[in-house]
């Protein structure tokens, strides 16, 4: 299942310096890379920007060429109804089966659907996909984010 559902997420290391976020955005914009979802985790001195884009390979190449530390990580996406309890049902499945969520983020799309992204330990990736699928959750194919 992994091959089909593993979404290539780009992680970018950013120092807390004015303009760095804009530099990333500019680089991607100039390369015509479309950002589908993003999430920025930060400490007082630095942050890690997580991006799901339409062309991960290109994004990574562009960012590396601009001197950013950028790496690729597998996450997976689950589509839920955009109403109370949608997120809970997914997290509950993972939690009850002892799968730790390292981080997660989401966006609410059109027509009452929301997309949730999850990063779980690599060793649990396959199991998480299978569990969610077995319990009737709708996994989103990676290809849907790419163009």
């Amino acid at each position, binding site marked *: 299942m992994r091959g089909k559902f593993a979404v290539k997420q780009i*992680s*970018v*290391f*950013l*120092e807390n310096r004015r303009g*760095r976020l804009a530099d990333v955005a500019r680089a991607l914009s100039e390369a015509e890379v479309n950002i589908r979802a993003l999430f920025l*985790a*930060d*400490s007082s*001195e*630095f*942050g*890690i920007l997580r991006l799901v884009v339409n062309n991960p390979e290109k994004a990574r190449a562009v960012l590396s060429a601009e*001197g*950013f*530390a*950028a*790496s690729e*990580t597998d996450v997976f996406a689950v589509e839920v109804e955009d109403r109370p309890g949608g997120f809970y049902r997914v997290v509950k499945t993972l939690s009850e089966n002892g799968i730790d969520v*390292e*981080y997660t983020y989401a966006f609410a799309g059109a027509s009452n659907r929301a997309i949730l992204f999850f*990063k779980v330990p690599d060793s649990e990736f396959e199991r998480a996909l299978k569990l969610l699928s077995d319990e009737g959750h709708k996994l989103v194919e990676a290809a849907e984010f790419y163009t």
Partner: protein
Amino acid sequence: MSLKEKDYMPREELQSLQLKRLKETVERAYHLVPFYRKKFDEAGVKPSDIKSLEDLKRLPFTTKQDLRNNYPFGLFAVPLEQVVRIHSSSGTTGKPTVVGYTRHDLKVWTEVMVRTYLMADVNEKDIVHNAYGYGLFTGGLGFHYGAEAIGASVVPASGGFTKRQLMLMKDFGATVLCCTPSFALHLAEVAKEEGYNLKEDFKLRAGFFGAEPASKALKETVAEEWGIQYVEAYGLSEIIGPGVAASCKHGNLHVFEDHFIPEVIDPETGEVLPDGEEGELVLTTLTKQALPMIRYRTKDITVIHREPCPCGRTILYIESIKGRADDMLIVNGVNVFPSQVEHVIAKVEGVTPNYVIVVDKKGVLDKLEVWVEVDESILKDGVGTLERLQRKLEEELLNNLYINAKVKLVEPKTLERSMGKAKRIVDRRQLEGGR
């Protein structure tokens, strides 16, 4: 004269031998190496100006850059037909430096290595486990041939494979260990993890450690852990390799003066400093044929001592190398060498070897920051992993260097890199007239 007696020659006899050899070396360098001739001519000195050992200071210095500029064989004083061995530095900061040896040079090298081994009375009954790298690096073969010449049984283990090395050391009953001080410590740590009893399972009685600066604490730890005589072996490939100096039972690092003349200079002005004062070590070879080195600036910081040593050797001794001349920092009175910081960073995963040390003033105190470029591999985990990495580096710096440094993780390629050598130090204290 036996080899050992050479360390005990009367000073007068030694000095007249030095002068004779110095004259020959200068003469050969001037006539056989265009580089030296040009330098001497520019400085307005001729070989005939060398009338006493005092005159050495009239000669121009030679630097690592000169070797690089003449890469690979430009400074050789013999045709390649007479060169029987070539070694080279790693060249991490540009072109490597290349050194050559004639048969005679190898004989000299073996002789000074034998004299190094004699610091711990190594003999034909000893089993010498040589864990210096074999190859272009001079450490492996230098220690190898010295031990063979003595008639000891040499185990050419070379580097790496720690657990296998421990097994061989135990099974073969090694009595002498040759490696870098940090590897000796690493061997001890792994041996303990593997359940060995260092003093009962091994028969080591002496170790010859060099190729990197070691703090007094590290030396003591290595000597105590293994229960051995710690012999410091100093040398550099440009001069000959290991075998320039070695420490006696009293811990004094004796220079084999009949082959190398040491001077200590002020690294800023180039002036020769009196004995007892700290400065940059400058070495002149007296017997090297293929690559005579005249007043080579080692960049190593030390002090020359000519007072008698309790061991009875008449050759002078220097203090253990403190670090590189162009690199030393004094932070709140503590000497800090970038190599030490580098050493700490190299052991921690998640950062690249690229770093900069930033010193600033905070009130009356110096404030030290170490900026390290993160490695992409660590980004897949959360921010917490990076914060733990930061703290770990800070702890390691405190444990190893006794300094409180703040570690800052920075983006790759953000650290300033000058042409050739990486710029490792940003000292902002001067800006405020702090020092």
